[in-house]
């Protein structure tokens, strides 16, 4: 497997140096692995801190900036960051209004953020948490570590970021973040496995004529393997899985997310099919985002996230945002 890297050990640090060179509006601490918006802490505003394994870019570092995250902590590839990083981030963004940790539901992320929250509170920083667990592919969550956090993370970070920018207090920002998570569901499809730099080869074996339904974002295989399907058939499977679980009554935000190696040509085509199926089911669409936002290294495939919105969530979603990965209205 050919990769545009130096050596596996420095992949994350090299990417952070590149992020810093491209975005002088961010403060990138390469050694301690913390990305902070340059004007932090912003007086009177709740700080938003997220993080997780690297390999999902632009999540999370690419979502740091006015209107979204205050700071992000990238871990090793697919490995949760450590509590020291989150503690540093929390200290850098806390203006006295408190800090919200946005945590994807994976055992490592949960444990490390929990430890960081304890340490931060010891230092007098008020911390609240929201757990993102939107993946409907995990059906028997009572017997697993629970539903995974995937595409909804973008909606949680965007909408909670807007709430924080408006100066809402910590409890309110947390409540809105929870509402976004509870209103969101996702489903992922892999056409190929991804290759981690450390391993250098695909993390699981997916033959040319087959696809995986219900995959996660860490190269873990899905729950079901099928013969290759058309974009329309995949859209039907994904929309059905999400809509059955979400039962939306309001308009939805749609995220058609590329896993890293699927061209926009295919993603837009898939988006057309998703819209066809949503229209058939009578689900109104409020806003649409198509692109690579929550990726899984070089995995081919896509995920679909729907988020049911009321007037307030939609207003916050539309609010201005300026980050490397998401930018509108300013």
């Amino acid at each position, binding site marked *: 497997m050919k990769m545009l890297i130096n050596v596996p050990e420095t992949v994350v640090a090299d990417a952070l140096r590149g992020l810093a060179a491209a975005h002088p509006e961010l403060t990138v601490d390469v050694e301690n692995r913390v990305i902070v918006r340059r004007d932090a802490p912003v007086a009177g505003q709740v700080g938003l801190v997220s993080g997780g394994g690297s390999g999902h870019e632009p999540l999370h570092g690419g979502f740091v900036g006015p209107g979204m995250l205050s700071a992000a902590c990238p871990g090793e590839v697919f490995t949760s960051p450590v509590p020291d990083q989150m503690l540093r981030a929390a200290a850098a963004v806390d203006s006295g209004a408190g800090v919200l940790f946005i945590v994807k539901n*994976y055992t490592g992320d949960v444990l490390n953020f929990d430890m960081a929250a304890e340490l931060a509170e010891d230092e007098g920083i008020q911390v609240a948490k929201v757990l993102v667990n939107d993946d409907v592919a*995990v059906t028997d969550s009572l*017997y697993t570590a629970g539903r995974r956090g995937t595409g909804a993370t973008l909606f949680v970070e965007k909408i909670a970021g807007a709430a924080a920018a408006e100066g809402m207090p910590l409890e309110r920002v947390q409540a809105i973040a929870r509402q976004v998570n509870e209103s969101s569901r996702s489903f992922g499809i892999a056409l190929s496995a991804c290759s981690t730099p450390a391993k250098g080869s695909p993390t699981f074996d997916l033959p040319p004529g087959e696809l995986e339904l219900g995959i996660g974002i860490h190269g873990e295989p899905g729950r079901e393997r099928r013969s290759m399907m058309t974009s329309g058939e995949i859209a039907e499977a994904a929309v059905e899985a999400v809509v059955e679980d979400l039962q939306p009554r309001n308009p939805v935000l749609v995220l058609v997310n590329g896993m890293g190696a699927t061209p926009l040509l295919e993603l837009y085509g898939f988006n057309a099919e998703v819209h066809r199926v949503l229209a058939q089911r009578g689900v109104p669409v409020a806003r649409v985002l198509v692109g690579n936002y929550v990726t899984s290294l070089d995995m081919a495939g896509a995920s679909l996230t729907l988020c049911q919105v009321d007037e307030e969530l939609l207003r916050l979603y539309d609010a201005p945002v300026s980050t490397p990965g998401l930018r509108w209205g300013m």
Partner: protein
Amino acid sequence: MLDAEFFRRWMTATAASVDREAERLTALDSPIGDADHGSNLHRGFTAVVAALEKEPPGTPGGVLTLAGRQLISTVGGASGPLYGTLLRRTGKALGDAGEVSAEQLAEALRAGVDAVMTLGGAAPGDKTMIDALVPAVDALGESFTAARTAAEEGAVATTPLQARKGRASYLGERSIGHQDPGATSAALLIAGLTEAAGE
């Protein structure tokens, strides 16, 4: 009696075996996890050895709490907090004593394993590090070698199990037939005791 030097040898021996077995741990983590268990633990135990060399603690408890703190600060993922908590809580249970008996170590390690079960929410049979650690602690009263054998058997016995915790749990039945990488690394940690004791 076991002194701080014994505990330093334990950590150094574990670091050496993690170094030796890193590729195997990562290979075990590949079909049911995300193929980084070996490299993550290697990073952690390298930091543990460096920290112990830099400021060697004078007590068994001090060695283990320092090692645990290093793992929490460097490993990440689930193994960082879980292994870090195991060593930290074992170290805390040993207190300030300059030397401890094998029985005291067994008792303290049981407290450490209990803390890991509370933190991770895993029980025996969930296909995790617990499946190696619980039988090892039970056998520790007998001898280090008995504990090592029990841990290794416990790790092998995870193969037919279906994972209920951690990332492998998302595979459901497809996790069956693979030995758990966490139980395998836990067996390396316990094996380190026999090496430290020269058994």
